[in-house]
């Protein structure tokens, strides 16, 4: 099944998550009203390293390159990113 751009989101991973999931990015379908938190929970059900997305360690969320919360509602075309707490500077 092909998803049109309007019904899909790009999901990106960074740093430790990117390494442990062995994944830079995914294109996933998005359903109306779906939140970043729901997407995260869905990914966690993949098991293995993915389970940590809903584990003890905090996961930060960005939507369209701005910090977001689990409750942020997603739309087709959005870029969603999941990453560990930042440690720059």
């Amino acid at each position, binding site marked *: 099944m092909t998803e049109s751009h309007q019904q899909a989101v790009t999901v990106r991973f960074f740093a430790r998550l990117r390494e442990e999931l062995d994944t830079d990015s995914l294109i996933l379908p998005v359903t109306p009203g779906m939140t970043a938190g729901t997407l995260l929970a869905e990914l966690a059900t993949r098991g293995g390293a993915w389970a940590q997305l809903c584990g003890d360690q905090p996961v930060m969320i960005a939507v369209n390159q*701005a910090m977001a919360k689990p409750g942020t509602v997603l739309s087709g075309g959005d870029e969603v990113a999941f990453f*560990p707490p930042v*440690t720059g*500077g």
Partner: protein
Amino acid sequence: MISIQQQDFDSGAEYAALRDSGAGTGAIVTFTGLVRDSGDLEGVRGLFLEHYPGMTEQVISQLVEEASRRWDVRKARVIHRVGELLLSDQIVFVGVCSAHRGDAFAACQYIMDALKTSAPFWKKEITTDGEHWVEQKSSDLEQSRTWE
């Protein structure tokens, strides 16, 4: 102006550019962060810095705007390096020009504290025994909250 770059920067040249910010400037505060042994691991040789291209620049630019709303900021400059860095290398530069010294200190420290907790950079320590992602320090979160 905000730069994310692999190459080193010349703090002297950055200072000179900041100074050229008009007759109203009475105070220039600069912060430079260097790679040091964090003390968490033995035998640290250096760091690898990853970032989220695009978002990083956007977040820092919002921090500079917020600082400019809170204090008199005539000119601000932020440089953050990414990629592989060795001990004592420069990582980050924040420079602020203001009419008054209190504003210059506060704006510079605010940008730096907020960058630490909200700009998407991640550090991996490279030690003689391998690599290790650095965990966020609760002291950085607390320091950033003091500005809220």
